[in-house]
């Protein structure tokens, strides 16, 4: 696939701005990708299947993930063709994320195909990217799911054993990371470690001393687990600023794509609720004919239009930097950071509001276990905390947009 600027044409009169030029619309490639993902999910992951899975102690859907990897190349979408991936852009990844959010799919797309992939790309770890590209193996970045990218410096695991013996050498890692997303199915665990210098290390899940403790999670469609490392053999992937840039790249890309997922979730909630209020009759009228309901849904639709613009802008900004020749050296720049902060803060609030309106406007039925409304609410709430709350991302904007806090 070609990169963004090739698809979007000549920005014309303002060559200075060409680096960030781009459309906020969905292109034809993206629309086709969306159709493929949606029909696959409709088929393989309908709500009753999701609900059944939520009750099992391990709720990831491995089969679905392999189907998505094989069918639409989801696992390697952001991996270059030279490493066996699809060479797609974040604009396409965002469409996949939207559809996964819509369908409440329990697959490690975010953790493996976005976060681990972006981190490994920034670290220039081509061999590991090649391992992830087909989806047989999945990866995860070993940080708590609630961590915002701005907290990247604090997310380290302690070394107990000897220091790495050579620049690409191995060492032994001891420590715990709590509440990691998409770690349960992951074979390749990327661990930010507090060696001197700071480094990003690879641990294979099968190594002696690796423990995974599944957690009862608010959102069982993205089940968290605690990772325990007890003198585990770890291989150094990157150190110092490169490692830090890699972790930041993973978390920033993750937040951007989580915003897209929230957009998809919000859209689905709105659709579902609009359909329901058209069908449901009370007082011998369709509930959707009552003006107070109509106005609330109109306001929600307006909020979704705003979320869509913000999410597309973030996908765009990530795509531009990711496609740049110097991505490994530069990581994501300030434009992408602003765009992701805008998108994650906006989409977190909109998705949560959409899910809440869905429960309320469905009345009692939306509060039952049988109906999907509650699971949208749980995922929306967990997503609003995952990779940094709206509040955390607005605090980032205070810095990025030069709006200093009181006392500064």
């Amino acid at each position, binding site marked *: 696939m070609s990169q963004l600027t090739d698809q979007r044409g000549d920005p014309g009169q303002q060559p200075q701005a060409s680096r960030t030029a781009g459309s906020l619309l969905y292109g034809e490639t993206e629309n086709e990708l969306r159709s493929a993902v949606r029909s696959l999910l409709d088929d393989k992951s309908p709500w009753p299947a999701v609900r059944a899975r*939520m009750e099992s102690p391990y709720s990831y859907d491995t089969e679905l993930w392999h189907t998505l990897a094989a069918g639409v190349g989801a696992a390697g979408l952001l991996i270059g063709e030279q490493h066996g991936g699809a060479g797609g852009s974040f604009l396409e990844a965002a469409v996949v994320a939207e559809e996964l959010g819509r369908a409440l799919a329990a697959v490690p797309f975010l953790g493996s195909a976005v976060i681990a992939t972006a981190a490994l790309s920034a670290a220039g770890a081509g061999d590991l990217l090649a391992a992830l590209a087909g989806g047989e193996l999945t990866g995860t970045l070993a940080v708590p799911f609630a961590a915002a990218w701005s907290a990247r410096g604090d997310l380290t695991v302690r070394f107990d054993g000897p220091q790495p013996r050579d620049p690409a050498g191995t060492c032994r890692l001891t420590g715990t990371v709590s*509440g990691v997303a998409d770690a349960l199915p992951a074979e390749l665990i990327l661990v930010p470690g507090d060696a001197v210098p700071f480094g990003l290390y690879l641990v294979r899940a099968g190594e002696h001393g690796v423990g995974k403790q599944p957690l009862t999670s608010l959102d069982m469609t993205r089940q968290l687990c605690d990772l325990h490392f007890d003198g585990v053999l770890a291989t150094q992937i990157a150190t110092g600023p490169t490692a830090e840039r890699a972790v930041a790249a993973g978390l920033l890309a993750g937040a951007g794509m989580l915003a897209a997922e929230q957009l998809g979730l919000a859209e689905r909630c709105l659709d579902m609720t609009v359909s329901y209020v058209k069908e449901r009759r009370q007082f*011998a009228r369709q509930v959707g004919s009552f003006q107070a309901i109509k106005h609330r849904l109109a306001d929600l639709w307006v909020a979704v239009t705003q979320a869509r613009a913000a999410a597309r802008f973030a996908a765009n900004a990530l795509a531009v930097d990711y496609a740049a020749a110097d991505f490994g050296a530069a990581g994501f720049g300030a434009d992408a950071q602003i765009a992701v902060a805008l998108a994650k803060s906006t989409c977190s609030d909109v998705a949560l509001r959409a899910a809440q309106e869905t429960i*309320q406007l469905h009345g*009692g039925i939306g509060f039952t*276990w049988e109906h999907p409304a509650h699971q949208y*609410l*749980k995922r929306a*709430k967990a997503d609003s905390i995952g990779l940094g709350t709206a509040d*955390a991302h607005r605090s980032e904007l205070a810095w990025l947009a030069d709006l200093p806090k009181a006392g500064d």
Partner: protein
Amino acid sequence: MLTGGVQEGRPAGALTADDLAARVAQFLAGHDPATTDRLAFLHARFDAGLAWVHYPEGLGGLGISRTLQPVADRAFLAAGSPTNHPERNGIGLGMAAPTILACGTAEQKQRWLKPLWTGEEIWCQLFSEPGAGSDLAGLATRAVQDGDDWVVNGQKVWTSSAHMARRALLVARTNPDVPKHQGLTYFALDMRQPGVEVRPLRQATGEAEFNEVFLTDARIPDADRIGGVGDGWQVSNATLMNERVSIGGAALPREGGMIASAARTWREHPELRTPGLHDRLLRLWTDAEVARLAGIRLRQQLAAGQPGPEGSAAKLVFARLNQEISEFEVELAGQAGLLYGDWTMRRPEGANFFGRDPGYRFLRAKGNSIEGGTSEILRNIIAERVLGLPKEPRVDTDVPWKDLPR
């Protein structure tokens, strides 16, 4: 820590607080809680008019102001008396009893109020149906007269305590040929009969606080009808008003209720604080305290004989605050807010917000704006009955129920 500043007003009644305290002391002198059988004690307390003092004499009360009830309760508590476990019979005490008192026959009051108050008979409420939620008057459960009995068929939903209940408040359609509000009749249904099937209804929290109840040729003696045939709508409105007051109107100390654990977490975990969350907490704390004051004012109005429509406001505010505070609390918890205690399907004895994790409170609170009258319906009520705004054009009030679109 902080002290609430307002007490409820001094009641006015035939007996003073001192008189009542003396009566309780006299009763306790004759019925030693330590040696009297539990049920015998409760029966005697009822017979002495010391159960609910504002009820009439002969029905467990003394006909005095309800604001004196705490005087009796405190004295019984201090003496180590057995209680009637009010938490197990909330619908009985909060809704069935006032409805029976207001609309029941003398014989029904004699028959039902005593075992209700003692807790020997738990009551539940069979109102909502899958097709009749906000539009309760549109309900489809049919009751057909058969000799001295009524035969009932239909499905009810959102019934708490149905699996423990001895009796149910039931509204059923007795005449489908008249407009919907006119064809309803109100009954007390015996839950222990073959025609009544209770199934747990699992909810968003994972547990099943409520039930679905299937009625298949269930039978009710006409003597258990409450109010006239066709008067079911009026009687059920009396019940629902009590529900709303009881949901929104509990008296709490400052920083009681849902705000308590949010404030505690805030104080105990400085590492979770952010400026944005601080602003939200201050707004929520302020709103919660003001809602508490509004609740005190509401009860003062009731005590002063100025029953205002503020009860609906209280329930609206209570639902909104519970939702916003619990939403805040999960966000404040951060990483810990991503976890949940237990999704196992269970059947609790009632909602207890406070003993569980923030995630539970967050989910459970979503029900607060639906149960006992949705916030939308309460806004309609306020707009029309309080503000006197015109009703919307209606298409369902003059047509026979059977001819309405469904």
